């Protein structure tokens, strides 16, 4: 089979993804998660069929424009592809990157034009040198328009993105991808409790979900749980962040593995404390893959339907 890109033909092996095939031929597309969730590798089909899985989770408008995900595309016939249009990539500039707590930067980015997203979604951030990472958006859309898009970035000293961001000057050019992810607040059932649990910077998108819920006059209780392995992992502190403290119906809890606490046990305890039918609760879980998997299973076993559990697993950088 043959893959055509920018007028050149590349061999495509049966079962090989378009992303892998292009990489094998030295054409590096932006990519991060490689499992279809970050949408960093989205490209466009000019002719041919990228295969049945390649369009998973894409908006109808993008489907109509021929977009698909290179990491999931395993075509069974020849395919001609093109780079995505400008609507999938938004040029942006760094406003600031300052520590918000131990090992975490609060990064503000101003896009050249308005970025549409749902509170709780994530977005890819790319810098010169072809480095792309996924971060959750903390700010609500109105705040992003006013003061910039806020991201919480865990700093790895040798991190190709995080270490670089810590040193980058204001106004450094960046590229934002198209916001994606299922872990966002959907208005409706405003009396039902929301159980929001995140580990590490997984709490960041949940701050957006909680604040979006309150902005929509959510009436049910909103329970936020921040889990970390060690005390310094609770980068927002033990107490409820000031932006949320004034809100009635909202409670904030922390859970430390180093104190012998278990995040999966903590979320099920909170579910039980809500004393309402498990079917009326919606849960949002974000963070490391193992924690998210364990919390999800625990809530399912406690009687919640998987359909009411929105989960977002972080993929380690560079994997």
């Amino acid at each position, binding site marked *: 089979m043959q893959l055509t890109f920018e007028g050149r033909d590349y061999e495509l092996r049966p079962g090989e993804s378009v992303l892998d095939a292009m990489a094998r031929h030295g054409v590096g597309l932006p990519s991060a998660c490689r499992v279809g969730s970050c949408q960093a590798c989205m490209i466009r089909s000019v002719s041919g069929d990228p295969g049945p899985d390649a369009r998973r989770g894409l908006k109808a408008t993008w489907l109509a424009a021929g977009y698909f995900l290179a990491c999931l595309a395993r075509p069974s016939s020849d395919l001609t592809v093109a780079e995505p249009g400008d609507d999938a990539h938004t040029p942006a500039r760094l406003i600031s990157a300052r520590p918000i707590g131990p090992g975490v930067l609060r990064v503000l980015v101003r896009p050249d034009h308005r970025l549409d997203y749902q509170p709780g979604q994530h977005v890819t951030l790319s810098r010169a040198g072809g480095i792309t990472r996924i971060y959750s958006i903390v700010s609500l859309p109105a705040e992003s328009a006013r003061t910039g898009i806020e991201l919480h970035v865990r700093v790895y000293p040798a991190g190709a993105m995080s270490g670089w961001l810590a040193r980058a000057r204001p106004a450094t050019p960046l590229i934002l991808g198209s916001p994606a992810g299922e872990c966002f607040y959907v208005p409706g059932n405003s009396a039902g409790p929301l159980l929001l649990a995140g580990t590490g910077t997984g709490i960041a998108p949940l701050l957006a979900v909680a604040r979006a819920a309150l902005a929509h006059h959510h009436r049910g209780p909103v329970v936020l749980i921040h889990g970390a392995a060690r005390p310094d992992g609770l980068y927002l502190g033990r107490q409820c962040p000031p932006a949320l403290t004034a809100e009635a119906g909202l409670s904030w809890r922390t859970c430390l593995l180093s104190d012998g606490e278990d995040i999966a046990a903590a979320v099920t305890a909170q579910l039980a404390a809500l004393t309402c039918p498990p079917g009326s609760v919606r849960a949002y879980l974000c963070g490391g893959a193992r924690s998210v998997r364990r919390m999800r299973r625990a809530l*399912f076993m406690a009687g919640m*339907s*998987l359909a009411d559990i929105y989960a977002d697993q972080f993929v380690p950088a560079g994997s």
Partner: protein
Amino acid sequence: MTTEISVYERLGGSLALRSVTEVFYRKVLADDLLAPYFDDVDMDRQIAKQASFLTMALGGPNEYTGDDLRSAHAGMADLDDKHFDGVLGHLADTLREFGVSEADVSAVGAVAGSARDDVLNR
């Protein structure tokens, strides 16, 4: 071709299937004999597969083939009849919880039981 109404339809079709599958999956995961086999599986993929299997067993519309079941269990050499019987037991209990008659529980059990050789790689 049969004109009889299937258990699948009597339960309420695809809408009910989701709850039936979740109750069934929860029983399997709560069983210490079976749970370890599900430690590392993706719950969404697993529940989709179980829904497809249950649709077949309940006589609903399906394109189910045993090949998938055989390859899915191929790496689990220590599976034996007690595991398979355990799963069948949870299926029967689930159906009873949804008010399915004993006659239908046995009929569904017989269809599900036909997968034994595929699951146990015989």
